[in-house]
């Protein structure tokens, strides 16, 4: 490989400055991933505090005001600190290697967009120690609870959101520019791996909606400090306007968190089925149309705010229809597995769990789309169950699957398969114990975001809490597997999975510091 010689006389700098000043996509990718793992643990411990309080009826561990801070921070940290940076990290590592580019197109911007994040989240987390406590208005921060009635720390929260937003936009620009300009000459759009495709579309979504979020929090800022009344009926504003703006950002955001996951699963399932992805063109087409249509369904999060009947029907129909292209993806993955030659290494286990559990989350999503029924589901634990099924075995499992899948390529060693499988099974059992009973308590009438509940919900909540702790502590195994793998183990071959296809496997393991300094030719096999 051309890049090996390059490594020898132009390796990474030594010491701390390597990480602060690096413009190398692999270094930055690693930093994103480590950052998101850290955030995953911080957000996770907040979830465990929540579950600890909810073991039994009555207030035991925390007071309601702190409980609200926990639910808020848990959501914000997990969405903006764990899931999104993890996907950006994976994109940083893999997109250049998958398209045969030497690095990202804008390396210094890349460095900058990462280093914004630690500051943004330090600021966000520091609000926990401020007078009045951290933001306590839920991760959806509905006005006026988040404006007139918010704790003083809301200003720090707004600034942190601005910074995280800037970081996301810069990252997205970088990915778009890279994919459009840096592909190896033979890598036409139609040959791009699905992970690259889904990320390209995600990046456009990010650029479209992050400014909406920034605008919304700025309106909050002026409402709080400069006497405007965007969200205050007393001054001619409207609290519901906030929700429209938020969900106009929020619904595409949901796809930002799941489209890269679709890409990852579409890489992993064919590898371990030893069979090309079924319906690749359909997948690409469906992804792009989901991106456009995702802008037309936002108010299905607001069925109970008193939308006019016309609006209610419109958003119900649009939401039901958008579920079809998503369903088609699931059919495609199953058809890829059908008549393959399957093996079940850890990445494949996570991918299969993704397909099954994400589908369950999709079904509850379809149920939520039926507006009259949503009057009963809305703001109950049924919704909590739904989006955790989409985000935990969806987004989070796909990130874990990707980590196991590419870890040998990153470190040059195979991870411990046995520990990996233990991690999978503990997570799988833990998360189902945690989130499945939430469907039941939700349907039985338990509202979300309450620190204490009536007696009929006690048993399922205890099961949820036990599952939550199992899932939480299982993640320590994940760290152990990664650390062990970085330290050493069985040497990984360049193509460490039998069925793996794609340019990233044509470089040695570990991938040299600089890859594809001259554009590669595509491997012979049918692509993708």
């Amino acid at each position, binding site marked *: 490989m051309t890049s090996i010689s390059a490594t020898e006389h132009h390796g990474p700098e030594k010491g701390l400055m390597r990480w602060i000043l690096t413009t190398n996509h692999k270094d930055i990718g690693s930093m994103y991933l480590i950052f998101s793992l850290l955030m995953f643990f911080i957000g996770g411990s907040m979830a465990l505090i929540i579950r600890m309080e909810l073991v039994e009826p009555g207030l035991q561990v925390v007071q309601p005001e702190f409980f609200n801070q926990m639910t808020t921070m848990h959501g914000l940290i997990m969405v903006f600190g764990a899931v999104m940076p993890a996907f950006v990290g994976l994109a940083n590592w893999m997109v250049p290697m998958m398209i045969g580019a030497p690095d990202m197109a804008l390396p210094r911007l890349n460095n900058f967009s990462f280093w914004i994040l630690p500051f943004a989240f330090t600021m966000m987390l520091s609000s926990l120690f401020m007078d009045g406590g951290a933001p306590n208005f839920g991760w959806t921060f509905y006005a006026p609870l988040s404006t007139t009635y918010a704790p003083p720390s809301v200003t720090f929260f707004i600034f942190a959101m601005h910074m995280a937003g800037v970081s996301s936009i810069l990252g997205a620009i970088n990915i778009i520019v890279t994919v459009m300009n840096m592909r190896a000459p033979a890598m036409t759009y139609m040959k791009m791996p699905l992970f690259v495709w889904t990320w390209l579309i995600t990046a456009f979504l990010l650029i479209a909606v992050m400014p909406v979020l920034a605008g919304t929090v700025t309106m909050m800022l002026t409402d709080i400090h400069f006497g405007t009344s965007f969200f205050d009926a007393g001054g001619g504003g409207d609290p519901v306007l906030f929700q429209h703006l938020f969900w106009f950002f929020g619904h595409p955001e949901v796809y930002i968190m799941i489209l890269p996951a679709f890409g990852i699963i579409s890489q992993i399932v064919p590898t371990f*089925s030893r069979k090309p992805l079924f319906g690749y063109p359909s997948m690409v087409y469906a992804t792009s149309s989901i991106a456009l249509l995702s802008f037309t369904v936002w108010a299905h999060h607001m069925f109970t705010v008193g939308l006019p009947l016309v609006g209610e029907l419109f958003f119900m129909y649009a939401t039901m229809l958008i*579920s079809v292209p998503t369903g088609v993806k699931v059919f495609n993955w199953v058809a890829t597995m059908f008549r393959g030659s399957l093996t079940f290494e850890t990445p494949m286990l996570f991918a299969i769990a993704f397909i099954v559990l994400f589908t369950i989350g999709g*079904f509850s999503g379809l149920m939520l789309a039926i507006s009259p029924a949503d009057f009963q589901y809305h703001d109950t634990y049924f919704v909590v169950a739904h989006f955790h099924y989409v985000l935990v075995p969806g987004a989070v499992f796909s990130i874990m699957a990707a980590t196991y899948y590419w870890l040998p390529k990153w470190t040059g060693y195979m991870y411990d398969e046995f520990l990996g499988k233990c991690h999978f099974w503990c997570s799988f059992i833990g998360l189902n114990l945690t989130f499945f009973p939430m469907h039941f308590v939700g349907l039985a009438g338990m509202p979300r975001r309450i620190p204490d509940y009536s007696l009929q919900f006690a048993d399922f909540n205890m099961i949820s809490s036990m599952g939550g702790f199992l899932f939480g502590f299982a993640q320590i195994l994940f760290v152990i597997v990664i650390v062990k793998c970085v330290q050493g183990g069985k040497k990984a071959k360049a193509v460490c999975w039998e069925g793996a296809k794609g340019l990233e496997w044509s470089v040695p393991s570990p991938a040299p510091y600089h890859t594809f300094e001259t554009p590669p030719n595509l491997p012979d096999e049918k692509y993708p």
Partner: protein
Amino acid sequence: MLAKIVASVFLFVITFLPRLSLADWAVNMTEGVTDVSRSVYSLHMQIFWICVAIAVVVFSVMLWSIIHHRKSAGAKAAQFHENTTIELLWTIIPIFILIAMAVPATATLIDMYDTKESDIDIQVTGYQWKWQYQYLSEDLAFFSNLATPKEQISNLAVKNANYLLEVDEPLVIPIGKKVRFLLTSNDVIHSWWVPAFAVKKDAIPGFINEAWTQVEEVGIYRGQCAELCGKDHGFMPIVVKAVPYEDYLVWVSDKKTIIAEQEAAAARVWTMAELMEQGEKVYQTNCAACHQPNGEGISPAFPALKGSVIATQDQQAHIDIVLNGKAGTAMQAYAAQLNAVDLAAVITYERNAWGNNTGDLIAPQYIQSLLKDK
């Protein structure tokens, strides 16, 4: 090792089973007691069974592949990767299923939105953290507070059967009548939800939302606020008592008499001991959520009253803030919420409890005169 972990999880579950078996294992949505709630329930069940059917098909194919097409069983991978006919088929069929689903959903929704020709109109106003009910044609209004004692919440007493789902003054509505709710809020967004009626509607400050119900069975129906509304979001339940129409009429006139008597009590002279006793009750119901039962508050959102300037010095300022609230904070204007006796009692209590011993006695007559001036 794997087996060990699985086994220990099971052991853990089994250890807890004895207490779990006492359970009320409610796993599904209530059918409710109105036409609307029943059609919502049937929509819910239809879409649920459609999902189950699709899941069975998809997961069976998957399971079949996992069992029969594994490499260790000698499977050789086929290389097919597209089939437009089958792809079209599995796209078109779900679309038709969804259209079939949309028809009854639309009908139900249109029904839910038909708030015309109501028999009784009730304005429901959300406050942090209680509900106010105003019977618009009756000149009758009252607040409905959580009735569960603090000791039960902090695990110092055995919990009631209706723990957190009980209020001091339930909403009373007649059966067989179309009741329209006009929902709004005094501070942040709340959401008024009674599962048995399938009514959930946000109460938004500055705007009025409508919903309606027609209950068929006598009974007590319980719900909760569904929209995060601050600290005590989990502690503002809704209780609706549905009674026959004649009983409803009797209740209305009784209720009016009681309220009139309470207001008349402002005219008589109250002793310090009486006011302190009454004041403590009022304080626990209306003030303790923020300023805490011990008067120490939660800094900085909810200031302390114990030893504070407001509760120990200028009397007029104290009365003013209780009556008129403080703009831009959670402090509400209680002139609109409590009667003169309760206001006088609670101010007296605040000025004399927790070592605030000012000795000030606020006379209900004086508060009454202030309220009249308004």
